[in-house]
Every structure is written in structure tokens, then in C-alpha cells.
């Protein structure tokens, strides 16, 4: 428990990426680096991006990404550099691959299924419910009145 709390405390000293000691001199490159940080997972942390985490490993990953960007790599190159080293786990945004097909498609499948069900429901003619005895009697009496 105590260890867990210590980890939490380390995580919560946060938004480490804005530290002036780490920053790149070129603001455009720095902005690109920050955009990538938000999509990269701090591997030892609990569900935190390296943009937020102050864990040591997150710092190393930030340095890595900044170095790559300074070396003139494109965003995609930096991402594939990271996945080559750490696997897909490092990206907070799952790739558009067959393995993740269900994940990406599910929301839209649900919408399509729902709309299809709604349309079917709209086009199914529904038999009128049988009248209860009470209702039948009432109808009969009303019809009688009408006739007289």
C-alpha cells in the first residue's frame, strides 16, 4: 500500500514536460514534441502519458523524442521508432490494424445496428391488441348509443 502511494505521489508531481530545463530551443519543434508526448504512454506509470508524468523513465522517453525531432525525423518516424523499441503498448492511440478492428469499429456497428432495428420496428405493422372484456363492453355500449 505504502509503495503504491509512493508511486502515486511520484505520478502526481505532474505536467513534467513543461520543465524549462528539458525544452527544445525551437518553439515549433517543441510544440511537435509536446503533441507526441500526449500520445505516448509512460511505461512504468499507471495509465499516464509522458507529457504528464514526472517518473524517471518518462523523462528518458521525452529526451528520446526530443532528440529524434531535433535530428529532423517526422512525427510518424518518431512513433515507429518508439513502437520498434517498446511495442504497441507505448502508444496511447491504438493503431488502425486488424487486431484492433473490433475496437475501432464497435461504436459505429452499434449505431448502424440500432438504426436498422429502429427502421425495422417502424416498418413492422403491429396487430392491434385484443380488447379486454371491460373495454369491449364499453365499446359495445358506445356503439349502442351511437345507433340510438
Amino acid at each position: 500500500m505504502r509503495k503504491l502511494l509512493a508511486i502515486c505521489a511520484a505520478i502526481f508531481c505532474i505536467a513534467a514536460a513543461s520543465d524549462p530545463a528539458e525544452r527544445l530551443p525551437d518553439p515549433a519543434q517543441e510544440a511537435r514534441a509536446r503533441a507526441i508526448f500526449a500520445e505516448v504512454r509512460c511505461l512504468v506509470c499507471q495509465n499516464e502519458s509522458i507529457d504528464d508524468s514526472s517518473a524517471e523513465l518518462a523523462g528518458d522517453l521525452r529526451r528520446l523524442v526530443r532528440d529524434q525531432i531535433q535530428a529532423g525525423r517526422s512525427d510518424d518516424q518518431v512513433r515507429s521508432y518508439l513502437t520498434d523499441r517498446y511495442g504497441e503498448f507505448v502508444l496511447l492511440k491504438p493503431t488502425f490494424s486488424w487486431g484492433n478492428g473490433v475496437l475501432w469499429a464497435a461504436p459505429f456497428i452499434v449505431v448502424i445496428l440500432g438504426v436498422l432495428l429502429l427502421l425495422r420496428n417502424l416498418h413492422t405493422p403491429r396487430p392491434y391488441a385484443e380488447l379486454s372484456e371491460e373495454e369491449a363492453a364499453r365499446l359495445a355500449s358506445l356503439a349502442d348509443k351511437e345507433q340510438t
Partner: protein
Amino acid sequence: MIAETGAFALILALVLSLAQVVLSVVGRWRRSSVLAGAGGGAGLAAFACVAVAFAALMHAFVTSDFSLANVAANSHTEKPMLYKVAGTWGSHEGSMLLWCLALTGFGAAVAGFKRGLPPGLKTVTVATQGALGTVFLAYTVFASNPFQRLVQIPIEGRSLNPLLQDPALAFHPPFLYAGYVGMSVVFSLAVAALVEGRADAAWARWVRPWTLMAWSLLTVGITLGAFWAYYELGWGGWWFWDPVENASFMPWLIATALLHSAIVTEKRGALAGWTVFLALGAFTFSMLGAFLVRSGVLTSVHAFAVDPTRGVLLLMILGVTAGAGFALFAWRAPALSPGGVFAPVSRESALVLNNILLAAATVTVLLGTLYPLIREAATGEAISVGPPFFNLTFTPLMAALLILLPAGPLLAWKRADALGVAQRLWVAALLSVGCGLLALAVVSPRKALASAGLAMGAWLIIGALVELAERTRAFRGSGAETWRRLTGLPRGAWGMTFAHLGLGVFVLGACFETSWKAEAAETLALGQTLNVGAYELTLDRIQGVDGPNYDAERATIIARKDGAVACTARPERRFYPTGGQTTSEVAICSKGASHLYVVLGERRPGEVWLVRAYWNPWALLIFLGPAIMALGGLISLSDRRLRLAVGRRALPA
């Protein structure tokens, strides 16, 4: 002694809950109102017993009775009183006790209401509530008893995580739990509807107040949590799509869908099966949340009291209760009446679309939360699903929902006039597009998507006002008539207006804050400055402060705008010696709805301090919006049609 009383009361409550089930079931079987009444009585007594147990645990926390393992692990003599009290529900065991308190409390409330529900429906509801109570009380007594004594009594406790020592978080769990567990009544009512074979308008009218109450409490609970994250974590984030946040968000989404589908069932007798399904689903997702938080199957910053054995037990509870509920549904639902027919353009269709989109959103959140587990179990490959995924899937679904929303309340039941609705809404559409274009032109840097988001927020707000104007015939009838109609509006209508308005306010705040926040961080020596947004911040002074259970460094930072002092921020960096943790206490200067957010970081060599500042425009609206929504829920709840369920309409709705 008091602790033993508590432990005894807890076991007694378990036995009473069991009696509640047996008496109610037999009472229903034999058509005996005496036995059914006795079942209700057992429910009331069970609640009283859990209340005694809860009070006993609270007493142990207040008096720092470290002979209890739970108190020793989570409290400390120097902790401020509020957090000693809040410590009662700050741990796994204590929060399960709170869960049981709410569960038996709602059971007692159902049993105690004299009027309204038909006897058969009521007896089965009480029995189901008792069964849920039995399961969770048994879990608490046998697997997570908060009254476990220690053989060696420690002199001092281990204290509560300092991050959790915060007023918003002290009240966050009770609201959240009341919301989660409030769904249990809806679950029980659904089971009763299936057993009795009647899910009609009267039943839907009984479901709505309970759903509204649980939904409102859940809204408050989630908002308090987000607000806590906003000012306590030190960088102004308020939603992280963390598994535990998702766990609380899924029941909320389902409850929102249920609120809307129950309207269709109540007014038109349609969608009965779907409404029952959602009613079962809401509490299932609540239990799923409880399991996810406590089992440690998912890594989360919120994970507390991670214990695999308990996780397995909770998973079994979830499987058995939800499984039983849905099996009953599969068996009995086909017998439910299909209800009235409606045209493609009608209020019914609009509410069905609302439900489709909310269901898709829930599936998205569910898959986003569980997919990494599924994928790893299936293929062994580990992946992460983070905020970028939800931005690409959840946000478009919500956007579709928000675009359709203002049209919904203007559509007539059964068959509506699309052209007429368009005529009433075109001014609103024009105005909100205008707002978006204005934002695009005025706010720098230019952001098209964020401006579209603002337009959507304006669309919701103006749309809600148009609907109000329609109901009161403003601009068309005489002023006196409008006033008469305005004062005569049912509370339920006001509730809806507030809820939709609140959503619009939230959308405005969320889009503005997320897209146009400004951030700055520098290491400053005394007297040096930092610029963020339109403000110039000067580090004026650093002083030491002695807190009740911490030592702190407090900075005095003066913010100036155009040379004039705008505010003085006093952020702190606190050290808690008990746990050896450091936390930062943020200083927030409110400027209208916007926040200047200042954080003091660590001291660096050469007498300099890391200072971080954020300009969070319209941040207040993010929390104000849900507050208005919850208020709408409460106003709606006070509608006498729902409160008494007398089946009489004060006004044609």
C-alpha cells in the same frame, strides 16, 4: 466495545437481509400482505443495523482507535477532523460498508413508501433489494470486514494518502456511491417488472424518480471527482479517460439513456423491453465499476486496496447478480407488450436515436476500458487505449447526439412535423453558427474544430431556450399568457430545460478550456517574472508554513495585467512526513469564468523555484454545467407527478 457492537450489527444486518428475501418471496407466493409487510420490516431493520455499524466505524475513526486494522491503516491522530470522518469511507473496507449502507437504505426506502406501487411489484422489488443486500453484506462480513482487530495495537496510524485529504474528495465517494447504488432500486424494479410481467406506463413512472435521483447524485459525484483532479493534481486536467473514471461514467451514460427511454414507456407504452434492459444494465455497470476499481485487473491511478481474491469474489457477485437479471430478462421480456406505433419523424424516434447514440457511447467506453485486457488475453500483445482513442470515437458520437438534441423536445409524439420544427429552430441554428464564426474570427489562435464545438454549446443553450419559449408561447401570445404558462410549467419540464442548458454550458467550457488554455513554466528566483496569457507573474516571496500534519513552502506570486495587480496567488508545496509524500497545493485566481492557475514546483540549485502557470479560459463552466444538470434532475424529482406517482397529471405535458 463499540467496534464489537458494529461488527455484531453488521452480521445482524446480513441475517435481516436474508429474512427480507425469504419473507418477501413467501409473502408474494402466498399472496400474504402480512408476510410481505414483515419482509419490508426486515429491510428497515437491516438498514438500521448497517447504520449502527457505520456509526461505530466512524466513531473508531474519530477517536483514532488503532486497535482496528482498518483505522490503523488509514488514519492518523494529527489528521484534521473532516478527514478522520471521511476516512470512514476512504478505504476498501469502509467504502464497501458505505455501499451496503446505501443499498439497505434504498431498500428500506422502497419498503417504507406506503403509496403507489402495486403490492405484488413492491414485494418483489423489496425481495430483490434484499437479495442484493444479502450478497454485498455477506461479502463485507466475510471478505472485507472493517471491524477486524489487530493483535498488536500500533501507537500511530499510517494516515490517509494526502492527495485524498481534500474537501471535494471527502464528499466525492458518498455522492458517487449513492448514485451507483441508487441504480440498485431501478434494477430491483426491473426484476419485479419481469417477474410480474408488467412493464407499463405506471411502472415507468416509478422507475423515473429513482433513476433521476441516482443520476443526479452520480452527476454530482463525478463532477466533484473531476473538480478535485482539476485543482489537486497540479496541471489543470479534469478528465483522463482513466479506467476508474470510465467505470463511473458508464453507469451515468446508461442512466441517461434510461431516463429518456423511460419517458417513452411512460407516455406511450413503447420500448418497455428496452427500458427494462437499461434498468438492469445501469446497476450492472455500477457493479462492474466496483469490480474494476477494487480488483486491480486494470492499471489505474485510482487503484486502491488492490486484492486479487476480493476481485474474484466481486467478479462472482457481478456474474451471478447480473447474470440472473439478464437471464430473467431473456426468459420474460418477450411477454412484455410491444406498445404503441410511431412514425419515423416523432418524439419516439428522436428518443430512440438518443438511446442508440448513448448505447454506442457506452460500448465505446466499455471497449476502450476492457479491450487491452481482451487483446492481451487473446493474442498476448499488450496495447494501450488512451485519450486519443476516445477523442476519435466518443466525441463524434456525442457531437451527433448534441446536434439532434434541441430538435427532440420540439417534436410531437407519434407523428411530428419536421418542417415545423425546422422553422422553430432556424433562428437558433443561425445564432449558434454565428457564435462559432465569431469565435473563429476573434479568438486567437484560430481553431476551426474548437469553434465548431463552441457553436454546438451555443446551439444547446439557445435550443433549450427556444423550447422554453415554445412552451410558454413567448413572442406569440400576450405577456400575461406567457407568464401564466411559465409559472404553470410542470417541474419536470423545468428539469429537462436545466439539464439540457447545463450540458450546453459544459460543452462551452470544455471546448474553450481544452483548446485555448495557455501554459508557461520557468525556474524563477525571487523577483523574476513569467508570462502566461495576458498576465505577468512575479515571484515575490517564499515562506515556510507549519500545517496540522504537513510542512509547506508557500510562495507569494503577484499577477499583473497591463501593470495593474490582478491578484495575489499563494500556491504551496506540502510535505507530509507520515507517508513521506510531497503534494502541491494549487492557487487559482478566478477571473469571471476563467482561471489563472498557479503551481509551485520544486526548489532547484541556486535559490530558484520551478513555477508553472496556466490560463484556463472558461474553466468554471466545465463544473458549473454538470452542477446545472444535477440541479435540473433535482427540480424534476420534486415534480409531484413523479414524487407521489399518483397517476394524475397536473397539466397536459
